[in-house]
């Protein structure tokens, strides 16, 4: 398939991504056409309820899907730009075998990820320094100075020597705000607190200067004060390193603070994507509106109940026909929404929403039907 060139500001463009999982009961269509773009050095927040496919999307980008999962169709166009040249090449990650050399270079080297469970994301028998060093020795290449015998020898091995990797590890620990990094570099995971472990994970992720950092609910397992610290740290480091961040969460308060762009997911689809301002101040999809209404507000009438979205997220084997949100949607148009599948169309303040209310053809028909 011919792929259109990307805007030079775009780092990753995901088009119509479909991921299926084979399970005993049949096929789970975890992603059913996901579309979004991540801009260079910007943060995209991905929000949605549990089971909406946020984490699956992240793992698809890393080619880290479980064995029973596969990318069925779609493109994940990655705009690869080498530090040493101005040329860029376009890689369709969806076409790369998970264990290929290219994918292993991207994974951890250019696209890094931090996880939900900092408590168990580090191998318990290895020190923090070993984890960081492992990544550095894998991805960073030593720089060669002409005529330097030592550098030549190192370059031949194409690996940063262990001692130097350790020094970088100490620097990284210092950067992520771990006190006494010289001592902490030889600490084992169980000697660190949850917040410190997530800081170590961030140090690992950023040690190789990635272009994209995927953060899959990085603060869910942490207490509230630590959450704020970790989020601030990520913003500071983004300023320093200039990487883009894909921030997955179901915390709308956090996302407003962290992200420039937001993608809202529901049942394996993007239902709305746009700038944070557009999404928060002028939401176009009924699902986004419902999500925003469910945030508790300061000044809310005392004793009033929080709004909830009616119904439950449907079981993956009984997804409604037509628009997947039609059975919970307050603005549902019977006979239309349960038949037609909405596409992502421009609406509101330049964002895109997948709702038939914004589909001019559908609305024309509705008006005509009313007139008759």
């Amino acid at each position, binding site marked *: 398939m011919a792929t259109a060139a990307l805007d030079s500001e775009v780092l990753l463009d995901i088009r119509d991504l479909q991921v299926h999982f084979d399970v005993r009961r049949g096929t789970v269509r975890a992603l059913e056409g996901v579309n979004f773009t991540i801009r260079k050095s910007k943060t995209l927040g991905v929000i949605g309820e549990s089971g909406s496919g946020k984490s699956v999307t992240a793992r698809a980008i890393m080619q880290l899907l479980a064995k029973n999962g596969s990318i069925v169709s779609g493109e994940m166009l990655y705009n690869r730009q080498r530090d040493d040249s101005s040329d860029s090449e376009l890689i369709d990650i969806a076409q790369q075998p998970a*264990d290929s050399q290219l994918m292993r270079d991207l994974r951890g080297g250019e696209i890094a*990820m931090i996880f939900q469970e900092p408590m*168990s*994301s580090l191998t*318990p*028998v290895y020190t923090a320094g070993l*984890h960081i060093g492992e990544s550095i020795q894998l991805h960073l290449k030593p720089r060669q100075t002409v005529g330097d015998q030592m550098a030549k020898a190192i370059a031949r091995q194409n690996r940063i020597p262990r001692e130097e990797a350790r020094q970088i590890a100490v620097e990284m620990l210092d950067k992520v705000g771990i006190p006494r990094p010289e001592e902490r570099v030889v600490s084992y995971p169980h000697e660190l607190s949850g917040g410190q472990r997530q800081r170590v*994970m961030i140090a690992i992720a950023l040690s190789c200067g990635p272009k994209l950092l995927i953060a899959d609910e990085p603060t869910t397992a942490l207490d509230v004060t630590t959450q704020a610290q970790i989020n601030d740290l990520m913003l500071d480091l983004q300023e320093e390193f200039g990487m883009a961040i894909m921030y997955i969460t179901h915390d709308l308060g956090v996302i407003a603070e962290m992200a420039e762009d937001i993608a809202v997911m529901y049942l394996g689809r993007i239902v709305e994507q746009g700038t944070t301002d557009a999404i928060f101040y002028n939401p176009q999809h009924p699902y986004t509106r419902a999500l925003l209404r469910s945030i508790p507000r300061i000044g809310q009438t005392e004793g009033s109940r929080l709004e909830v979205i009616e119904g439950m997220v449907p079981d993956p084997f009984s997804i409604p026909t037509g628009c997947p949100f039609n059975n919970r949607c307050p603005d549902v148009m019977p006979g239309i929404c349960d038949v037609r599948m909405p596409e992502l169309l421009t609406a509101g303040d330049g964002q895109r929403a997948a709702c038939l209310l914004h589909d001019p053809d559908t609305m024309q028909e509705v008006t005509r039907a009313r007139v008759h």
Partner: protein
Amino acid sequence: MLSYIIRRVGYSVVMLVLVSFVGFVIIELPPGDFLTQLLTELEGRGDRSAEDRVTELRLRYGLDIPLLPRYVKWATNFVRGDFGESFALERPVREVIAQRFWLTCALAVASILLVWVVAIPIGVYSATNQYSIGDQIFTTISFIGLGVPGFLLALLLLFYVVQFTDVDILGLFSREYRDAPWSFAKFVDLLKHLWLPALIGSITGTAGLIRIMRGNLLDTLGQPFVESARARGLKSRTVTWKHAVRMAINPLIVILGSEALPGIIVGNALVATVLNLPTIGPEFVRALQRQDMYLAGTTLVFFTLILLVGNLLADLALAWLDPRIRLE
């Protein structure tokens, strides 16, 4: 750490005393003793002087004194390195055990090596290729291996070898080396004979260890740190061996120290009996049957000792391998 080891050694001594005493009492429990058995045997043959002979032996072995003082006497001698005399073999227990000890150890070490070398790679393969054809085949084989008792396998193999080949399968040495002094040729001959009993003795252990390794590794492979290792861009082989297997193998160290080592030295008495191996196991069974007190008691104490040492070594190895349980 040192004080921990000293404490453990202290506990071990208490344990040894308890086990030896209880063992002593239990061996004594059945009616009669070795000499009453001997008496009936001799009288049955029509030996007229049987009565006198037995009385003489009773005095010589100190069987005329009551249990408790007899235990104390034996225990104090034990500490000095005198383990008493075997009634049936009419030789010092020390000699009997020493003669069989090294061969028993050689067999145990060979078996354990075989178990680990075979079971770990198969277990890793089975876990990393869960539900593949290979995994199904190994799973089936390992269940059969777990289900069939070792002595039955030994019998079947014995039948096959004797019936269809002219390999000298019984014992650990060929006839010409059996009583020869140690030499390189005798050692080679030992190796030639050792692999078969080692193989039979290790089949149950191998089958069990494959199951345990597979289960542990499957658990570990589902852990977040495995995914984050893959997310760092490591090769899947590095992720499997350096991160997952390294974690999954820790519990096996405990099994090695507390079950495998003592199990193989003590157990397999049946296999050793069938294959007529000059190891401690069959001798221990015979000693128990004949109420050969000092031989049985001494063997029991040594078994306990091996178990305790094995446990201690396993705990130390685990502390060395896993920083989480290192003691202050």
